[in-house]
Structures are given as structure tokens and as C-alpha cells.
């Protein structure tokens, strides 16, 4: 690995804390990912990306900035990458997946705040997220109340925080609000980048992001095979890297991986024996390096075959229809696409549960694990009705509520093993 110390210092990172973070992350990665058996060759690319996630990729961002391109960081799948690409910007997901410096975060946030929000603050206050420090603009979005209020506190801590409002109902007024917000966001992007969004640049951006989503959709569909050609952990990793990597190179690497996996399916080879209990995970997003529940599941004689999550199908299952002759018409198409996202902040939100059922069927899963982060009110509130509806439809469901700490791993493991045993007996 090259020496990036100079670059990290120039970004203002706390080198000691950052070293500690990278060493924990590196060890966890080797233990969890590299120890898996029969991994696809195509995962080597993602191993490389993870190895360089704070190195080479950050250097690329710095090079892009030197060429006058803007870096836009965000925390949510409602922030359209298309618009960022249309001003020749770079869109990156920001770090919020690890229990780092929660003591620091708790000096600004209530203790009963979800791990995702606490992590974002822990990384900022600990100065260990190079993506955040390299961002010219950090985009916040009014999804849940926790995030909404947290951005008020985050504002003074970052260079340029831009908050986007979001609708909470799937109504005409809601859609108009979303489009108006996207229009405002274009203005903001044009201002910071000094570049105009044109029909050509926006069309090209839509095509780039569509191709990226098509690649992960292809991966999602291949996972219907038994034996599973790829572990849930590796597939989750691909979905996590989705937010950090260069979109074109990422698309290419996912497609190469898919070529290999399709061959595996044809030959009937997989990472777990045929007939292994298959599960779909539904609920809160799992940002890098949140691998806690998948590790417990895949060490309990089960395999995860799909994620109904922002880091997963909720973030990628819709494409943008390429149509329209003006920026405004293309923006309509983009708004239509994003307005489909069935995040639990919407009320009511029936399409989410319908889609979980569809995934269970298409991916030949035996059961669903509903995953909620502690204190994430929208998903925890929704978990009860979702569980009831799934069980009523004959889909065994296990509801888990946890955070980023490891202290409840034993109890979670007991529940997961019992759930897998329940499914086997059917």
C-alpha cells in the first residue's frame, strides 16, 4: 500500500485515530471476508477497493478536485447521484457504519440516538472519515426526525451542509415537493461547480447510474440460484462499495463478477451446500463496516440471498426512464424514479411489505429477518405490522433490534439459530 500520510494530514484527519480505525477495520475484514470458502474470483476487485477505501479512492477524489471537479458527500439514497454527475461532480456515500467515538458523539447527541447517526458524528468529531473531509458539500436530507434534527447540529461542524427536504406521503403534492427540491439541488450544484446541467450531461448521467443499478440488479437476480453462488456477506459488500467507488469502474467490475457467478450457477457450484436455509434481510441500511448480523446468520447454517434495504434493493431496484428533451422533462423522469423508494419515513408504506414478499418468492427464501437499528423509529414502528403481514402470508419472520456494539451478539446468535432451526423443521 502506498503512503497516504501526507494526503490524510492535508485533509485534517487525526492520524492516530485514523490508524486505529484502519487497523480494526483491516483485521475485521480479513477475519470476516477473506476467511470465507469458495469465494468468487471477482471479489478480488472488491477486496482491493476495501483495502484502498481510505487510500487510492481518496487520492482519486483529490485528483478530481485538482481538476476542478466537486465532491458531494451524502448519507441517503434519496440524493440523486445523476444530478451530481451532470455537473461532472463525484458523488460519495459518507461513513456511518462503525461504532467509532460514540462518547464524542454523545457530547452533542442524546444517548438514545440510532447508531447510524451517532457514527456519522463520531467520524466527524474524531476526524477519521476522509470522504467527509474531502467533500465540498455534505448533503443532509429530512428523512427521519433523528437525522433531520442531527443535521442542525452537524451544520456548524462541516464546510458546507446542504439540507434537502423530502416528502412523507406518496401524494401528488409529495412528488411536486421532491421535484422542487431536486430543482433547488441542481441550482446548488451549478453554483458550487460553476458548471451547467445540460440535456446532454443529464442524459449521460442517467445512463451511467442506470448501468450501475442494472449491474447490481443482475447480481440480485443471480442470487435466486441454489446453491447460492455468492455469500450474503460478499453481495452486501458489493452493495456497500456501490456508494464509494467510481460508477463506471464499479459497473464493469460487478458485471464481470456476474459473468463468473452465472457460470457457477450453470455448473451448480456455490459457496454453501445446496439446500442451505435461505433468508432475506429487510429493514435498516447496513453501511460499511456494519457486517454484524450477516456474520451471525452465515455462521448459523444459513445464507442471505437478498437485502430489502437502502444498501440493497431499496436503493437500486428502480431505473430512471431515459426520456425527455429538456432538463426539466428529464428531471420529471428522475423524480418519478426516486419517488418510488419505499422508505419507512413514508406513511402509509404498503409497497415495502409487498416487495419483501416478492423477494422471498423470487429468491426462493424460506424466511425473512427484519433488521432494525435500535432507536430507528420508522423501521421499528413498521416492523410490527410487517412481521404480522408476512406471518399471515405464511412467511416466517424474525424481528431483530440491535446496534453497532457486539455486546448482544450471543443473544442474537441464539435467536438466529432458533429461527433457522424453525425453518428446517418445516
Amino acid at each position: 500500500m502506498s503512503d497516504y500520510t501526507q494526503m490524510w494530514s492535508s485533509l485534517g484527519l487525526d492520524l492516530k485515530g485514523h490508524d486505529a480505525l484502519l487497523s480494526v477495520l483491516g483485521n475485521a475484514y480479513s477475519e470476516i471476508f477473506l476467511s470465507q470458502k469458495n469465494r468468487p474470483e471477482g471479489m478480488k476487485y472488491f477486496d482491493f477497493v476495501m483495502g484502498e477505501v481510505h487510500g487510492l479512492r481518496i487520492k482519486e477524489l483529490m485528483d478530481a478536485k485538482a481538476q476542478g471537479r466537486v465532491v458531494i458527500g451524502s448519507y441517503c439514497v434519496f440524493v440523486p447521484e445523476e444530478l451530481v454527475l451532470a455537473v461532472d461532480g463525484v458523488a460519495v456515500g459518507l461513513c456511518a457504519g462503525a461504532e467509532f467515538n460514540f462518547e464524542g458523539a454523545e457530547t452533542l447527541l442524546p444517548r438514545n440516538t440510532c447508531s447510524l447517526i451517532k457514527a456519522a458524528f463520531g467520524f466527524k468529531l474524531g476526524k477519521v472519515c476522509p470522504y467527509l473531509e474531502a467533500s465540498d458539500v455534505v448533503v443532509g436530507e429530512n428523512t427521519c426526525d433523528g437525522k433531520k434534527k442531527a443535521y442542525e447540529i452537524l451544520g456548524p461542524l462541516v464546510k458546507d451542509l446542504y439540507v434537502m427536504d423530502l416528502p412523507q406521503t406518496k401524494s401528488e403534492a409529495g412528488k411536486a415537493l421532491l421535484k422542487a427540491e431536486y430543482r433547488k439541488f441542481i441550482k446548488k450544484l451549478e453554483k458550487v461547480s460553476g458548471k451547467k446541467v445540460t440535456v446532454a450531461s443529464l442524459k449521460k448521467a442517467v445512463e451511467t447510474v442506470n448501468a450501475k443499478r442494472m449491474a447490481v440488479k443482475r447480481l440480485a437476480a443471480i442470487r435466486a440460484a441454489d446453491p447460492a453462488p455468492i455469500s450474503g456477506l460478499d453481495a452486501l459488500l458489493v452493495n456497500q462499495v456501490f456508494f464509494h467507488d467510481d460508477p463506471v469502474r464499479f459497473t464493469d467490475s460487478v458485471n464481470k463478477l456476474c459473468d463468473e457467478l452465472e457460470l457457477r450457477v450453470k455448473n451448480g457450484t456455490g459457496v454453501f451446500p445446496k439446500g442451505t436455509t435461505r433468508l432475506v434481510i429487510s429493514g435498516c441500511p447496513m453501511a460499511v463496516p456494519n457486517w454484524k448480523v450477516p456474520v451471525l446468520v452465515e455462521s448459523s447454517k444459513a445464507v442471505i440471498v437478498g437485502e430489502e434495504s437502502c444498501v440493497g434493493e431499496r436503493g437500486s431496484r428502480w431505473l430512471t426512464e431515459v426520456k425527455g428533451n429538456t432538463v426539466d422533462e428529464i428531471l420529471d423522469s428522475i423524480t418519478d424514479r426516486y419517488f418510488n423508494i419505499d422508505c419507512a419515513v413514508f406513511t402509509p408504506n404498503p409497497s415495502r411489505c409487498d416487495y419483501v414478499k416478492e423477494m422471498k418468492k423470487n429468491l426462493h427464501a424460506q424466511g425473512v429477518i427484519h433488521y432494525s437499528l435500535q432507536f430507528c423509529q420508522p423501521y421499528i414502528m413498521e416492523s410490527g405490522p410487517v412481521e404480522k403481514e408476512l406471518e399471515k402470508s405464511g412467511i416466517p419472520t424474525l424481528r431483530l433490534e440491535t446496534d453497532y456494539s457486539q455486546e448482544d451478539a450471543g443473544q442474537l446468535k441464539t435467536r438466529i439459530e432458533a429461527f433457522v432451526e424453525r425453518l428446517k423443521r418445516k
Partner: protein
Amino acid sequence: MRYAGIDIGSRTIKLAVIENGRLVFSRTSLTSHNPLETAQDLMKGAVFDRIMATGYGRHLIKGHLLCPVISEITAFVRGARFFPTDCGSILDIGGQDTKAISLDTDGRLCKFEMNDRCAAGTGRFLEVMATVLGYTLEEFSAAALSAERAEKINSMCTVFAESEVVSLTSQGAKRNEVALGIHKAIVSRSAGLLKRVAPDGGKIFFAGGVALNDCVRILLENEMKRPVFVPPDPQIVGAIGAALSASEDE
């Protein structure tokens, strides 16, 4: 063939041996600071052909003994079927967790719920409260049953409840009425779990160390308005379940 089951719990370790479908041997011991050693001591002299482990320490023994594992939940379901009852649900209150399980008509696992990560409202909670009030566990249950009214205990957290109890007694509350309040608190919490997984689960199979407490059993019956069955030795149900699973695993 003789089949053994070992249930490594947080407070006690249980061993049961089954032969020809009959329980031929069982033994219980406190877990201590070294559960592996305690488990090995417990198995000394026991004769069996195969063994299966369950309980929160099940993975601990796996590396030291050729021993498959099952979760406590499956072990209790299997163990409950050993007894000739027609229970539709199981409540297990052990040393540090509480499980509520609903069964289908064939007595198989349907749904389950467990308490969250802390030991609020479990056997350990009762132990600490008995000590605070200066009772042995046997005296504790009897005292609660003798009370005509109960003091209200609001907290289920062992630490907070302890200070609540201290403040009640210092205000002159009757010891047995505080005891009844504590028993009521634990029952209302467990009943909540049961109502969630098995709202119409018929007779309740009550297992785990807390099932030895008569007051909890009686209050549970009143609260749920359903009959409660307590097996002769409620602590070894999980070990029996593991032994039976060992016999089926061939």
C-alpha cells in the same frame, strides 16, 4: 443407546441422560466462573453414547468435545414434548433470559420472543431482590404468597429496582408486600412476551429455574387466565430436549 443433553446456562448447568425414551439420570450444578470446568465435572461418571449441547454456553464446549449444538429455544420445544401434556406455549424464565414460545398443533416451534439484552425480570432479578429483602429464595416466594396486598414496583432494571425496594422498606413498607410487588412485576413482564407470541396458546408449559417459584406460577395463571403446567424438575427441560435431539440426529 444412551443420549445426553447438557444445558449450559448463565446460572446453572444441567445434564440429562435418556435411554429408551426414559430419563435415567440428571444432575444440576452452579455455573461458577469457569463453566467449561463445571460442565466437565458434571459429566464425570455419566455414561452416554452421544451428547448434544444447548444453553448460552453451548458454543464454549463445542471446541472441547465432539458435540453438536442446538439453540435453547429448540431444546425447550423438544424437551417439553417429553412430558405428556397438551401445552400450546412455553415460558422459560432462566438465570439471565426469558423466552416465550408458541407451538403448532404438532407441538413444533412456531414463534418465539426473548427479553432484550439485559437480565431485567429474569431469575437473576429475583435472586438479587430476595437478597435485598433478606430472604432465601424459598422464603421469598412464601412471603409473597402471604401478603394481602402488593407494593407497586415500577422498575424492571435490577439496579433501579434494588434502589426502589430499599426506598420502600425505609419508608416502612411491609417486607412481604414488597416481595409480592416484585413477583407481580416479573409476571406482568413475562405475560407480555407470552401474549405477543401466543395470544391464544392454550395451556402454558412453564420451565426454567423460576418455575420452581410457586408465587410466580400462581400469579402467571391468574394473569394469563390459562392453566400452567410445571414439570417435576423444570430446570432440566432444556437438557432433556438436547438429549432427545441427540437421539434424533442419527
